[in-house]
């Protein structure tokens, strides 16, 4: 279980995350949505123990991230928005390096599991290549393998499907749904609202660091007082496009 309790992060005069409180239960996929710069990544970084909150705290399966960071990290897996992987390692070496840090016993069983995961995500063919030669999508798939290799109970995924081919995206979706059904706690952020609508059990929308809406799709529809897709609800809550300006731009294009 993930609990964010009054999480606040201040940068200079900017309150990037402002008293954010939410909870992700075991067996649940929670989608954290919001416009660019709304505080999603900062929130995730605080949950992961990468950034210290100015106020408030977070608990991962009951472990306070500030007081017991190592115990909390032991049960988490993380895929960052832009994975920066060690370029001088091969894919195979990197996953084994991560497995070693997790102290997963070396041997046939571990090798087979890594091989299976890499094959599942279509990167096994490149496992002996240096990471510097990987495309962005391949690097993201590799980072997912590294996040899953120790079978975490809690997964934090920042834009995990961005830049992934359709087959890879479908595979990831099936993996995450399967993990959820087996009791994993999954927090994911995405800008692709169709993905969030199809995969997430509950959704939290943050804007300017504050949680402005939270719940299932039905809860959100009720909150927004309208039926429709998640995209329509999201835009009605966070503010839609400036139609007048768009019209003026298109008019200028026509005139040119």
């Amino acid at each position: 279980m993930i609990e964010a309790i009054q999480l606040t992060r201040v940068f200079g005069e900017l309150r990037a995350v402002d008293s954010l409180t939410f909870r992700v239960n075991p067996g649940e996929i929670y989608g954290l949505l919001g416009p660019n710069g709304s505080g999603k990544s900062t929130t995730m970084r605080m949950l992961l123990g990468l950034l210290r909150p100015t106020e408030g705290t977070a608990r991962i399966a009951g472990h306070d991230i500030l007081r017991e960071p190592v115990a909390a990290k032991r049960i988490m897996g993380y895929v960052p928005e832009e994975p920066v992987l060690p370029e001088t390692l091969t894919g195979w070496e990197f996953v084994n390096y991560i497995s070693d840090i997790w102290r997963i016993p070396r041997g046939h069983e571990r090798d087979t599991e890594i091989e299976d995961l890499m094959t599942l995500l279509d990167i096994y063919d490149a496992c002996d290549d240096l990471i510097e030669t990987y495309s962005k999508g391949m690097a993201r798939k590799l980072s997912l393998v590294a996040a899953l290799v120790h079978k975490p109970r809690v997964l934090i995924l920042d834009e995990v499907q961005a830049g992934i081919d359709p087959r890879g995206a479908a595979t990831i979706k099936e993996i995450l749904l399967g993990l959820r059904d087996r009791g994993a706690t999954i927090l994911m952020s995405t800008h692709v609202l169709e993905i969030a609508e199809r995969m997430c059990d509950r959704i939290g929308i943050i804007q300017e660091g504050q949680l402005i809406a939270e719940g299932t799709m039905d809860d959100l529809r009720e909150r927004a007082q309208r039926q429709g897709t998640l995209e329509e609800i999201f835009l009605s809550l966070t503010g839609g496009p400036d139609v007048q300006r768009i019209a003026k731009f298109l008019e200028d294009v026509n005139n040119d």
Partner: protein
Amino acid sequence: MTLSDLLFLLRLDLKQLFRLRQPRGKRGGKSRRGSLVIHFIMLLVGVGIGWGVYFIGTAIGWTRLRPLILNNLEFGNFVFNAILLFGFIGSVMYSAMIVANSARMEYVLTMPVATRTIFLEKTLVLVFAVSEFWILLGTPVVAAVALVAGWGVTIVAALLYVSLVLVFIGIGVGAGGLVGLAAARLVAGHRTVKQAGYFILTALAILASTFWYYNAYFAEDSQFLGGLISFGRLLGLTSDTSPGRTFSVLILGTIAGGGVTLVDVLTGLGLAASALILLYVNAVVSEAAHYSGWLTYESTRSSDRKVRPRHGRWAPRTLPLLRMSQTCSASMWYNITSIRRKGGVLAQYLLNPLRFTVFLLFPVLTAPEELLPFMTILVAAAAIPFAVSYGVYFAGYETVYEGKNLMNLQLAAANFEEYTKGKVYSALPFSLAASVLFSIVALIVNPPVALYVPLLIIAMPLITLIAGPYAAFQAAVAGDFKAERMILRQRGAAAQPPITGLAALKVQLVPNLAGFALVLGMLVIGIFVSPLYAYLVLAGVIVVAVRTFRSYSHSAGVELAQIEASKYL
């Protein structure tokens, strides 16, 4: 924090740092063998020097060498204190950079290992990286001296030397890291102050290295060594109460079998404890800096300005008397802006030529009076590499560094000839400023030279007009468009030259030769024939420079357009 985690991470990182085998994969990557070869060469040099020392030592004989060592146990003060100093200077900014770039090791930071352990491990890796030079070169030398005494003491002396190098570098890295973090904290969030600091430090480093080169090449051996030792004495490097003295006494005393007191041993242990404490404190401060986020604040946070900015009419400045197209003026504005906003880059570009020209300038200052007319030629000669380099850097290198914009089609609609011209024009104000400065120097050295000052001031920007488009053309032909403009980079990161192969040589050689031939030719004609003729030739040089400028700007533009339309489409 556990010792087992620390050692475990250290083993993994060192294995990665010193990769012995090439990967087996099919996808081509950069060769990793280069750094191994350098290590091997360093070791070979160390063994070579060691063999020489052993040869001389055995020739002298241990019975005569031993009293010599015992009477001069402080002999190594200078060298060992220098190791400490190098360790310190070399790592002043690295801890701050490790923290600032902690996003690059996000994976490790989310692992079930204490953050402090991770920072301590990274600092230890830095200690090993800085130490390897001294260990690979110094251990064979120490072992060779000890070998003259006998096998037994050799291993002890070598191990002691390696341990003490690690201790000294540990102190240097620990202290330097703390100083760097403190400095980084002071300037965090103040971009202008930071860039001004980079400019000043880079400029000082270039000036210092320039004087170093000059001394190394021109001072007589004894004077150079004497001067170095005097400078070292000034810094306290030869002091009898410095850490280097303890290092020297412990090593040489162990080899000679005497002269080491209990105080020396305790001081050595004290230094080892200081190294550990400093490294640990460094890790604690790094962890605090990482958590606080102040080092990444500037680069990763959105602006906290709530006020909607208002802008005046967009009108990038053009050069007086020149009619420029929109592409040309935008290209010139962009080039100057992107360079001046990086203090370190600006200092590198503006002052780097000093490293070559110092050899021409110093004789001017010490020349006898009867040679002064010729010194004017030397001053002009010293100005030429500046004019050439500004053209090469601003038009050649920057064309490559902006290659990413070629790849993502940002520049697809641009007229690349105008784009190249803009880059060349951006170098002209700096070239003109340098020519004025050098003219002032020439006037001070030899006032009658005033007659040639206008010639010099006009000629230098003309050289830039020749060098810039030529460099841009070579950059378009042989530029490594994946190269990044990295003045400050983390240890171990590869430096990519922007222009590769023979073109790298051509961009320096051809414009410099042309510059020397044209400018010195005019001066020689002026001095030996008549100043009037020098100015007449200048008119011809203007025509040549403008034609070359147009011709190579066009060629560079065509080449860039072809790249944009073929390779990156």
